């Protein structure tokens, strides 16, 4: 494949990459894993960790592990990891760089270009920060696409009749709902809203708490 363009979902809790082949998107995997935890860390030995290893050390070294960096994109926050002080785009760049490596291993060619999705409510500053992250990771960001728009395109809704579609996006850390309009193949986000602090992780946490409570009551422990 010559100079492919990959699509990247740079998520709050997980990220993923895909390539369109014969009109169909295919997720790019590593060791059978389709999702990369959006976590970056610095190991006690001073090695950079991205994805699962970074997530694995969170409990042991939370001060050297960054999660949910997407929530800080576009802000003036700085993240200190060991002796490094990094911007949110630099942290995101670690994740994008890892995705680039995964894509190159899958496609067996150099990957230089990408399309990255962002929430429809992302401001210009947040979009700019995302583009910047891609460039730091060595990717030419050919387009920034709204996540609900990407979902509509993936389902081929732009090839059907003109319509209004409600896209429900329940991620690991965030939840959004977007109303999008499809007219003559053009996709436009009419409205988008959600909760940036609600996602599948919260469901997991509530379930874990519920089960723990039942267990504690039944066995008189904790």
């Amino acid at each position, binding site marked *: 494949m010559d100079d492919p363009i990959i699509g990247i979902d740079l998520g709050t809790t997980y990220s993923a990459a895909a390539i369109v082949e014969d009109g169909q998107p295919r997720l790019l995997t590593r060791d059978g894993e389709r999702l990369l935890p959006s976590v970056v860390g610095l190991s006690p030995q001073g090695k950079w960790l991205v994805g699962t*290893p970074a997530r694995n050390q969170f409990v042991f070294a939370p*001060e050297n592990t960054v999660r949910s960096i997407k929530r800080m994109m576009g802000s003036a926050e700085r993240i200190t990891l060991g002796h490094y002080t990094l911007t949110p785009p630099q942290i995101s760049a670690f994740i994008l760089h890892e995705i680039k490596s995964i894509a190159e291993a899958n496609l067996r060619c150099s990957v230089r270009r990408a399309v990255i999705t962002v929430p429809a409510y992302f401001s210009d500053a947040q979009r700019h920060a995302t583009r910047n992250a891609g460039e730091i990771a060595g990717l030419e960001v050919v387009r920034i696409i709204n996540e609900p728009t990407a979902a509509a395109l993936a389902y081929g809704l732009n090839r059907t009749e003109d319509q209004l579609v409600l896209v429900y996006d329940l991620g690991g850390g965030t939840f959004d709902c977007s109303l999008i309009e499809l007219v003559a193949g053009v996709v436009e986000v009419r409205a988008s809203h959600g909760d940036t602090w609600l996602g599948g992780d919260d469901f997991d946490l509530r379930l874990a708490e519920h089960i723990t409570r039942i267990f504690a009551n039944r066995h008189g422990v904790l």
Partner: protein
Amino acid sequence: MSHKRLIWEEISQLAVQLARDSAAETPEIARIAEHLGRLARVQFKANALQEATLERQREAITALRETTARQEETISMLQRNHHKDIELARHDLVLAILPVLDGLEATLHNANQQLGHLAEGSEARRMLSAWVEGLWLVYQRLMDVLAQVDVVPIPAVGQPFDPHLHIAVGIDRSGRAPEGVIVAEERRGYRMRNSILRYADVIVSRSVPFSSQPPTVSEKERVRGTVVTADRIPE
């Protein structure tokens, strides 16, 4: 046109010429020349036919070679896919077996604890001990089967914490082990050849206190640490 066909073409033309030149004076030579001309044309046609046949044979051989190469490629791809499918099925099967193994380990652990509560030499202790021994053999047999497909446990307790092998699910502040060393294993991890089947859930020794806050400082508070330039990620 081949060299052989050119020669016969020339002989044919010479025979026609000879027949024409000698027709009046020596009719016998003219007849022989005419006959030679006919034979030359027949030979010419035979050569042309042979060349066409050879060409078709060459094309057929090339097509056969291409088909054979494609077949070999397909067989190779099928073998690779077959191998991948087997690996995937084996991976899924082993993953499904791991909770059974966890259950066996927990049972053995609890049974050993119970043994400690039973009086030495009692009938109950003797029976439980025999039962534990039998269960231990079953467990060992299962581990041997897994080892045959290159599934091995990930070393944990006493090892330095390695995020590529272990998941830290808790920390231990007792100071009974050096910093960063695993003091307990909550759930055993397994690897299959070079890949991780399941990370080991571990408790890691840590005496250095850490902030409960995420590793973030505001722009104003950024007074320490190495500032990395914004256009690159650190090596």
